[in-house]
């Protein structure tokens, strides 16, 4: 019951190689195409930060719902939170260094009445979209997300060491506060980090759309890490019933993602207002293939693959659908960032994919490090027995 994950040689070597590939892609990108590189850095950093944030959210959600089934897999989303501090710090760094390339609204001449570039719309949004306030918000997200991740993790580890109900009782209010703050900060974070790239355009459900993507990609990552650990002979107590629940989660939130995607698209398509349609116009004109693939990969594939009960209980199918969803959600973030930054001259090549491999390596490295620090079973959790006997 007290078994820890032991890092193998490959667990250190392969993420290192991946990070080296990522570094090579970033260096090559800065030498050839600056705006593409900044866009791909933001895409990948945001994507993996979102997955990592979903880890903390998942843990908090189980506390708030008083759900017992997930106790046996709780260490995995907890460990995913280990990347969060690097991820959010990376977003702040990318903003400080690359804001001129990434965010059109940071250009000073837009707010200069005498300049020919003066933009009345952007001037009207200046109270919210200005560099100092933006930085304050980013630091606020850092404090909230990383702080709650740290506190929840600390309570969980103390519970392992000391036992008793006191840490569980402390975790529940922490988790409840975090869920509320998470709801607000993911919405505003999505406006800040992704929606302000196309600063003239706005959509009221963008934050929820981003949350749906965050949740479904995080769930797929949790599921894949569980499957990997089972493959290596860990997590004997996690059986098909737990995986079935993960499969149901992935299936449900793929549909939720599509629901929000379509709600955003259809209203804009139907109303046909120029300032709103421009967002989809750019994607339809220049990114049509990827745009259609995005929908197919994120909706049709998981919907049809994961529909039946037997599919959700079979490891091989969960491997495939997890990887498909993670790839699809990456493409989704790519399509939210690239059209606004790079525009017509976009490519999907070594710079983007290499950076993705690098960030994946970094993410796996921090996650596996965190996993190896604590027992894979939270042995003193009051609902552990319920999780061990989970049966559906």
């Amino acid at each position, binding site marked *: 019951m007290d078994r820890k994950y032991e890092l193998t040689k490959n667990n250190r070597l392969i993420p290192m190689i991946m990070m080296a590939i990522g570094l090579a892609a970033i260096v090559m990108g800065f030498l050839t195409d600056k705006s593409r590189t900044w866009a791909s850095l933001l895409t990948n950093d945001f994507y993996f930060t979102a997955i990592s944030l979903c880890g903390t959210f998942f843990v908090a959600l189980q506390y708030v719902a008083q759900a017992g089934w997930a106790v046996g897999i709780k260490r995995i989303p907890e460990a995913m939170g280990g990347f969060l501090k690097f991820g959010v710090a990376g977003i702040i760094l990318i903003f400080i260094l690359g804001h001129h390339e990434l965010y059109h609204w940071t250009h000073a001449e837009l707010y200069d009445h005498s300049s020919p570039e003066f933009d009345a719309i952007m001037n009207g949004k200046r109270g919210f979209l200005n560099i100092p306030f933006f930085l304050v918000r980013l630091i606020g997200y850092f404090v909230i997300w990383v702080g709650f991740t740290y506190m929840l993790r600390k309570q969980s580890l103390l519970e392992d060491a000391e036992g008793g109900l006191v840490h569980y009782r402390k975790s529940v209010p922490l988790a409840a506060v975090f869920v509320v703050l998470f709801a607000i900060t993911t919405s505003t974070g999505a406006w800040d980090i992704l929606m302000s790239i196309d600063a003239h355009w706005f959509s009221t459900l963008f934050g929820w759309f981003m949350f749906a993507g965050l949740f479904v990609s995080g769930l797929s990552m949790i599921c894949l890490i569980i499957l990997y650990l089972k493959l290596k002979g860990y997590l004997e107590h996690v059986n098909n019933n737990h995986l079935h629940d993960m499969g149901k989660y992935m299936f449900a939130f793929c549909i939720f993602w599509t629901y929000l995607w*379509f709600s955003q*698209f*259809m209203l804009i*398509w*139907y109303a*046909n207002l120029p300032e709103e349609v421009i967002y989809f116009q750019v994607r339809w004109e220049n990114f049509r293939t990827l745009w259609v693939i995005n929908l197919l990969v994120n909706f049709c594939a998981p919907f049809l693959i994961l529909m039946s*009960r037997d599919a959700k209980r079979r490891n091989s199918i969960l491997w495939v659908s997890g990887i498909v969803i993670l790839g699809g959600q990456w493409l989704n973030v790519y399509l939210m960032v690239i059209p606004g930054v790079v525009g017509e001259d976009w490519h999907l090549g070594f710079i983007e994919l290499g950076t993705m491999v690098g960030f994946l390596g970094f993410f796996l490295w921090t996650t596996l490090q965190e996993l190896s620090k604590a027992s894979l079973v939270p042995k003193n959790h009051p609902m552990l027995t319920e999780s061990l006997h989970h049966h559906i």
Partner: protein
Amino acid sequence: MAKRIYGIFDDEEILMKAIPVLRSQGVVCREVQSPFPIHGIDPIIGTPRTRLSITSFMYGILGTSLALLMVWYMMIYDWPINIGGKPNFMLYLNLPAFIPVTFEMTVFCAAHGMAITFLFRSKLLPGVTAPIPHPRVTDDKLVLHVDVNDETKMDQTVNSIKNAGATEVLLKSMQFS
């Protein structure tokens, strides 16, 4: 033709232990009726898994097709209307506008079809006398349905059900109406 007899049990724990014993003796257990759901009893009885989920998929497909046919006939073929300048001469060009209707029809057909199929298969349609072998199955008794294929083994089967913990074995359904 198999004859169906009914074993009446008082306690679900006794029943859960009795069924594997009876099955190992070659008794064909068909169904359990209980006043409350018993977790994990399906694999013990050995009934095949329900095909209701397959019907739900088929009803869903039916709903999607019906909805598309309906909007195509109404909005494209019979009486095309220019709404907000949207194209109205091909179904696929105007598809986003029809997705909500299609979605609703899919859910409608899948849900209603599944519910009606379930009621039909369980013989629970309105006006039909419920097939309850023992009146107290709605209160505190559990009923195990057993099929006896060979009439000569009737006494032996009744005895094994009683030995397994049944308080009573009914050779005939006590219908009440």
